């Protein structure tokens, strides 16, 4: 492994780890502006993490080792995912280890561990949250897979870096099937990251929440790791979206020296700023769905992604 490859690989991971809370902070700020509230400072998530890391853990009696392991596993799998997704460069040695299908598997692993940990204490809330999370998961996961299938069919590869490379090699045009996939992807992204039509990240109203219900028993460093992991998850999803639909600026194979990497990092930050604002706009414009409407919403995303596949076969022949 040459030094520049190392820089690419580890630089990307470090960038993800440091930028992820900032991105969440930026989105929260945009939301506050749009809703005419006083915005929290941009660094609020970091302060939150620092505070949590310094507190003592209050561990519920009856917690098994699974419960204490889970925050680390969640954080670890999200960091690994960040190492696979080509956010600034496509020549990533670790990306060969797991292609996009394995990436979905990695997300699923994190979800299963989080749900199991939520059931571990045995409170009514934790189990309810786990059940709802798994429900959202089993509907969102196939939708995400179908979105990725669209990209796979276009590029002939399931590895995300190859997908990006294939796009940048081709002419600049919006592929019809990707419009469907794009809509489906945004829907899945909102659902998977506990965003507004499905879940509300800023509420602690007991009856409506999914993600927060699973975390009720976590505190201090465990909670910090989980919060960090969920911000990383949002960051990773955003980067998957960029790789699939807006791959411009990512340093591709062969053209990824130092300047290209800096340029790619700049492009990434620019995309994140725009995307964060758009996310806040979407969230401010929509209302939270009743939980029983969630299957309908996700089924729509799933069908749109499948429709994208069909359109590809329709028009592509």
């Amino acid at each position: 492994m040459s030094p520049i490859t190392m820089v690419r690989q580890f630089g990307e991971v470090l960038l993800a780890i440091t930028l992820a809370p900032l991105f969440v902070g930026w989105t929260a700020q945009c939301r506050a502006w749009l809703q005419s509230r006083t915005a929290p400072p941009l660094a609020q998530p970091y302060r939150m993490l620092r505070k949590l890391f310094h507190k003592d853990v209050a561990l519920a009696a009856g917690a098994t080792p699974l419960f204490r392991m889970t925050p680390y596993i969640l954080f670890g799998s999200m960091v690994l995912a960040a190492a696979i997704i080509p956010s600034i460069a496509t020549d990533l040695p670790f990306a060969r280890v797991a292609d996009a299908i394995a990436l979905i598997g990695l997300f699923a692993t994190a979800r299963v561990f989080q749900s199991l940990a939520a059931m571990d204490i045995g409170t009514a809330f934790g189990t309810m949250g786990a059940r709802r999370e798994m429900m959202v998961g089993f509907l969102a996961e196939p939708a995400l897979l179908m979105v990725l299938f669209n990209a796979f069919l276009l590029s002939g590869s399931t590895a995300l870096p190859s997908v990006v490379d294939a796009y940048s090699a081709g002419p600049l045009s919006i592929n019809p099937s990707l419009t469907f996939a794009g809509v489906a992807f945004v829907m899945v992204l909102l659902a998977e990251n506990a965003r507004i039509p499905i879940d509300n990240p800023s509420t602690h109203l007991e009856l409506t929440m999914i993600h927060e219900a699973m975390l009720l028993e976590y505190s201090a460093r465990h909670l910090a790791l989980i919060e960090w992991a969920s911000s990383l998850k949002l960051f990773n999803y955003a980067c998957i979206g960029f790789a699939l639909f807006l791959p411009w600026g990512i340093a591709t194979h062969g053209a990824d020296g130092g300047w290209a990497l800096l340029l790619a990092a700049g492009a990434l930050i620019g995309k994140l700023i725009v995307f964060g604002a758009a996310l806040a706009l979407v969230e401010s414009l929509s209302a939270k769905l009743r939980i029983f409407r969630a299957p309908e919403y996700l089924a729509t995303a799933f069908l749109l992604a499948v429709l994208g596949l069909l359109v590809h076969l329709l028009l592509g022949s």
Partner: protein
Amino acid sequence: MSHPGWVSRGVVLLQRHDLHWVLLLVLGWLFLGAIGLLRPHSLRFVARGLFPAGAVLGLGVALLGAVALLAGQAPQAMVLPLGLPNLPFHLRLDALSGFFLLLMGVAGAGISIFAAGYFRSGEGTAPGLLGLHYHIFLASMALVVLADDAYFFMVAWELMALSSYFLVVSQHRLPEIRRAGFLYLLMAHLGALCLLLCFGVLQGGKWQFTFDAMRGAPLAPLWATVAFLLALLGFGAKAGLVPLHGWLPEAHPAAPSPVSAMMSGLMLKTAVYGMLRITFDLLHIQFWQWGVLVLVLGLFSALYGAIFAGVKTDMKRLLAYSSIENIGIIFTGIGLAILFAACHLPLFAALALSAALLHALNHAFFKSLLFLATGNVLHATKRRSLGALGGLAHTMPWVATLALVGTLAIAGLPPLNGFVSEWLLLQAFLFTPRIPHPFINMLVPLGAAVLALTVALAAYVMVKFYGIIFLGQPREPALAEAHDANWLERIGLTWLALGCIAIGVLPQIALRATGAVTGLLLGQTVNLSSRIWWIAPIGAKQASYSGLLLLAGIICVVGITFVAVRILAHGRFRRTVPWDCGYPWQTSRMQDTAEGFGQPIRHIFGSAFDMERELPSPSDSAPRYRIHVEDRLWRMAYVPIARAVQRLSDSIGVLQGGRLAIYLLYSFLTLLGLLAGVL
């Protein structure tokens, strides 16, 4: 090669007489069963002596299967001077049978060693008799995959059905177990009847019943299709393909857990074997329409099984439905392989077939593991309903930890084995646009979508299974005294769990094994990478995966995070009571039940079920909520057929007058009729 001399000499020795050795070991199983009868009531003798010996024989069979697979030699054949006058028993060992011997041997060894610690005295059938049935069952499964003529195949097949029937009804004092056993026997025989007819068609008018003759028999496309459909019916009934699955959720829970594990993990695979043997080996042509049929049936079974597993509340029944799901996934792979093979795309056919074979192997590991774990739970708590369990991770740490491995594997999560086969299958779906039929081209993405949904549902089901049984607080006070598995059981469970991890981390080894089979059946293998920790079945550019490096990555990152948190922050914690949401009167009964956990599935897929609900009224002093979910196919398909058969047999019953003279008259008239026919 840097093997020491004696290893290579040993391999050569094994290779040359491979089939003889296998036969010897299989006879050893029968022998073990027979000597159990010497002291039928001594649990010590049977359990501590015979079952471990059976496990060792299983390892031997697995080794010989592996030699047959990996040595790449020509198939070995053998004729036993037994059987019908001009049809002695033919045996043959090739890569396909080698693969299934390997599967049976490895998983069977784990189950046998577990069974050695599992059986208790005073539970139904005497231990000696149980041991006899058990070992006959094992031996007959091995003979099924070794048989090389239709007659011997059917003998072994029926022996397998009968011995497993006796195992299912080993607690025959309970009426529902007798009922389940009867249903199983009925379906097994209907399936066997189809197979008999299938072989009748396959011999192609030459009346030669060896498989060799069938390979050469020229069949018209119509007759080939008839034979294929009969095979699909016969093997589908054994495998539990929907709508022929009716017996499976009844019989699997009724049997003792090691037997459930064997039936689900191993016996269903003999149907997969038979399907492959007939479709790819005995029939020399395939049509893409067959592939579509198998694909649709497989996908339907997979989704159906997953949905029902989501709403079931009996832990063994849940696993039985999950078996239907996994069999569906395997048949999906087979269907895809037929489709590709018929369209002359052998590389992709090899990919799909590898996925199916690997999933069969994986399922043998994780499903056996989970069935055995439910056996432990059953022994420790005497409860099968999920609603009465909970919190067993505290009292049964061994079982809980090992079952977690099985749970994650069956949920298809990386880096365990279930993920690898599903990954391969999804890769195979990705290449379906190369099929030159526009309609199929468009239907297949829907297939991939259904598969993805099934896999995700399986994760839901397994979280429910594991979370309700092992996590949370005990729902009943008696659970606090549950005991963990004994040492023999631990060995069995650990063996199977290690298998799940090993195949997941180093799938390349398993792919080599399936590669030998696809080489035999399709003349093509997927791309095998030279490094043992990578798989890239089509090409490194298209897709690659490495379970080992993924696991290493997870361990590294988790380890670094842990150390970093300890260094930069601290590791202090204190124990407190869980947060009670401002309601201090919470009890452990207020946790989500299995019914509650399955509620989203009932809500979303409501039209698949026959549901009966009893809702409490607001003024009830002791409110009760009850829900009963039934298989809709049971009412729509099975009950009408049973009624029709009943009516038919009632009308035939008119003949049964009860007078001896009349019966004699019937016989006499039949005789006269037959003689007139000869005239």
